[in-house]
């Protein structure tokens, strides 16, 4: 039940989103834009995390006859593999052409 509670309540903080988006776009984004970004970011994280759990299950199959085995935490390799598969299997991540635009390479449009 606590997991569901966390699932309902947790979100990507609007303040952090504003800081990031304002820096990237060099403008002060509207509140509803921050709400929208925070909303779909949560969906995005869910997709990646669920895929990472699949990867974990494939890499390290749980022993079916041991019901008392505790769950193992997700490791960076699971998450990186999940992210790689996500990019490969869905055409949903915008191509990062601008990253080669030079500068700090962190995506800022205005330095």
């Amino acid at each position, binding site marked *: 039940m606590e*997991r569901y509670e*966390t699932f309902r309540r947790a979100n990507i903080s609007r303040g952090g989103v504003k800081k990031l988006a304002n820096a*990237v776009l060099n403008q002060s*984004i509207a509140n509803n834009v921050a709400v929208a970004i925070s*909303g779909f970011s949560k969906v995005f*994280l869910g997709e990646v995390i669920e895929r990472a759990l699949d990867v974990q299950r494939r890499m390290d199959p749980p022993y079916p006859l041991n019901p008392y085995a505790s769950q193992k935490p997700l490791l960076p390799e699971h998450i990186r593999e999940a992210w790689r598969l996500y990019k490969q299997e869905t055409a949903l991540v915008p191509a990062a052409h601008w990253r080669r635009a030079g500068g700090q390479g*962190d995506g800022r449009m205005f330095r």
Partner: protein
Amino acid sequence: MATEGISRKRKRPNLFSNDVRALMYAFGDVPNPERESIAVLEDILTDYIVDMCHEAARMARTTNRNKVKVDDFKFALRRDYRKLGRVEELQRLSKEIHEARKTFDDSEGKSLSKSHGDKDK
């Protein structure tokens, strides 16, 4: 992702660590996720948000606009039914809350003016 290499030259802004940790538990990880895993996910999320902002800015630029609007993000998400649906749901809920607040304020005002005997009218 070039920046996920072994060494990092620059420090990445740590904006969402607590949020990411909570969401990892929420979506199925252990209650106390690995610190490294949180960091990796946070990086991925930050890059994704930055990429989406660029996409939305591109949309805005095609109509000679400087400021991005929610519609720009919605167009950027046009092929992603899940996230698009979430954004539309949030818009609808926000509108409902706004409408509900408006009705509440109106009824408050009316009852107050009645108790003062319509002096201000």
